[in-house]
């Protein structure tokens, strides 16, 4: 007779998110619980199935009794926690962060292949970004079209590193990484080789599908034609990590 598999000692806690009483496993993060209950928390770097990055800071929430804001993607739930996800202050911060992202590189939606299917664009709309108050940086970056199937446009990149993580954690190739620092960071393939010359890239296209903007797209797409499909990710991730 097979021995019973020991159950990990994980408790269920109850917490309050925006006046909803919810229960959650104590190893879940706030954003996981929010997504489960369809509570909208904006995020650009978090993606179900990938490791936590905590870089875009759009998912910051207020937790009652804590002075500092917490990122919902990297904060675990706790018993009795009271979370506010959408206060006036948070809305203002999110709007400013999105404005600064728009101003950092070239995000002109009207000529972008991802127009209408872009997470940055959608968040801009849902967070009420009707104009950008900070000056545009207007630094041109290269476009890498050397890969036969895909294209990389650094001007549309928001450095969320989803491509880096999906390539490393799901595909297992680790073709992508980040070089440089500050606003001049670039995602690179191998040691900054042209993508088409990369020896590690398997051309699986996962990076393209998880990219929230028009930075990673399929070759041959025109304005508004690049529709991305991410439903494979949680499935693959669960199989891979057998949670």
């Amino acid at each position, binding site marked *: 007779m097979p021995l019973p598999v020991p159950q990990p000692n994980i408790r269920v806690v109850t917490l309050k998110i925006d006046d909803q009483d919810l229960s959650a496993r104590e190893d879940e993060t706030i954003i996981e619980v929010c997504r489960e209950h369809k509570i909208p928390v904006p995020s650009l770097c978090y993606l179900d199935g990938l490791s*936590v*990055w*905590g*870089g*875009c*800071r*759009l998912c*910051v929430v207020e937790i009652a009794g804590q002075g*500092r*804001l917490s*990122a919902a993607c*990297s*904060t675990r739930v706790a018993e009795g926690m009271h979370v506010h996800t959408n206060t006036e202050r948070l809305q*203002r*911060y999110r709007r*400013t*962060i999105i404005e*600064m*992202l728009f*101003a*950092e590189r070239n995000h002109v939606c009207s000529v972008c292949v991802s127009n209408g299917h872009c997470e940055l664009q959608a968040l801009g709309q849902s967070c009420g970004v009707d104009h950008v*108050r*900070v*000056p545009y*940086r207007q630094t041109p970056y290269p476009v890498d079209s050397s890969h036969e199937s895909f294209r990389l446009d650094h001007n549309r990149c*928001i*450095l969320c590193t989803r491509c880096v993580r999906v390539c490393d954690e799901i595909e297992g190739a680790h073709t992508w*990484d*980040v070089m*440089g*620092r*500050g*606003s*001049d*960071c670039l995602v690179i393939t191998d040691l900054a080789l042209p993508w088409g010359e990369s020896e590690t890239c398997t051309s699986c296209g996962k990076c393209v599908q998880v990219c929230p903007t028009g930075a990673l797209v399929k070759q041959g797409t025109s304005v508004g034609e690049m529709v991305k499909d991410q439903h494979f990710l949680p499935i693959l991730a669960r199989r891979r990590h057998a949670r």
Partner: protein
Amino acid sequence: MHLEDLAEKAADFRAEEAHITHEVRVCMAASCQSSGAAPVMTALTEACGDATDHCKVKGVGCMGLCSAGPLVAVADKDADLIHSVLYRDVTPDDAPDILASVGGAPVDRLRCPTDQPFFARQQRVVLENSGIIDPDSFKGYVAVGGYSALVKALSEMTPADVLREVTASGLRGRGGGGYPTGLKWSTVAKMPGDQKYVICNADEGDPGAFMDRAVLESDPHRILEGMAIAAYAVGANKAYIYVRAEYPLAVERLQTAIRKAKRAGFLGSKVADTQFSFEVEIRLGAGAFVCGEETALMASIEGLRGQPRPRPPYPAESGLWGCPTLINNVETFANIAPIIREGGDWLAAIGTEKSKGTKVFALAGKIANTGLIEVPMGTTLRDIIEVIGGGIPDGKAFKAVQTGGPSGGCIPQAHLDIPVDYDSLKTLGTMMGSGGMIVMDETSSMVDVARYFMEFCMTESCGKCVPCRTGTQQMHGLLDKITKARGSHADLALLEELCEVVQATSLCGLGQTAPNPVLSTLRYFRDEYEEKLRGEATP
């Protein structure tokens, strides 16, 4: 090994030099070397020769008054800095005169009085050996009582006793945050796990700060001793010193110290003939300021890209390679040996109610005595700047002092009488930081200062989180516009709003504190910003 054995060893080392009655100590720390201490040392050594075997020329660490370097002290063998004859701005040509003066009348033209407040008002705990012992000499360190704290901890104290003394001392982290050291140590000690690590953060990067460099260059064994005691207390057996590659002399002296301590049995397996093993490795920082942030520093040690990650988990829980890790600053470790030697209560008697002990400050900028000082916590800024620092040179008026580097802020004249400790500085909108103090006179523009620090944060932002990456760059753009007298009131309002967003939402300390120089100059010198807005300043 017991304390008596070590004392015997120390007595032997002292006996080896019993014939020497006088020492000529040449400061060989980085700042004196940059003003020409090495040729002075050579000239003195050659001139001394073997003729005077009662006198020894030796290279020592920092004596503090860097602006007067190269410094040479002539002292009776066991005398400290105050009781020596100090010479300033020494050149190789002065060597014969200095040697001739040993034991006789001092050379008046080179004399630098040691009874001046700069020396007399200091209280040296961390720097007790600095400028007295030869940093490359293991024997020299043991002769002045070195490693007695480690031997005492290993032979007479349990790890719990060590934790108790450190907690009782009230010591707080000297890297800037001021987290209670005893609490941090106890947390790591309580964590389960066979493998734990100790890290010494020597990635000192604040502009104008050189405390850690001086300690490493002047008394490297002290850091090793402090780290070994920490490792014993928390149950670690492996440590890393993360030191920036821009400090080649500090690295070299650390390497020498590690090698000699290992050979003498104070590092490695069976430290001081006990069951305790302790290995230390040096890791060089490649020049990124953000690697002073503890999670980025650990990523860098692991060979990853040096960028921070969200906390919790804190390093005490999950640090280097996921193991519980104790990470402290150089100066914090430098305080450990005296605490164990003299007892926690001894340190707790120095300083203010909530900030115990002494603090090393690096005085820089528009101040007469540029250099390194160590004063008890609670000394007023006025004492530090006007009395110890000698005030502002060239008859100019004082305007502000910047503390805490790019994370700190500027303090104006009106608050100079505040006693310096972690909490008082926080109420003024700045922070202790690692101890850099940049003094500015009436000719400095505070908007320029804010822009300078923002530029620093912008170029040092790792690029991981959006508010810091884009926010510092936008704020720098606005400050640049304002300094060039092209800004508007709307720009100033936007600047203040960005400050709030970046402070509240950034991932790590670098971003969260990057707006501080702007916020503090706005708080105390808002008129300077307004003046520029009206276009009154020359572009």
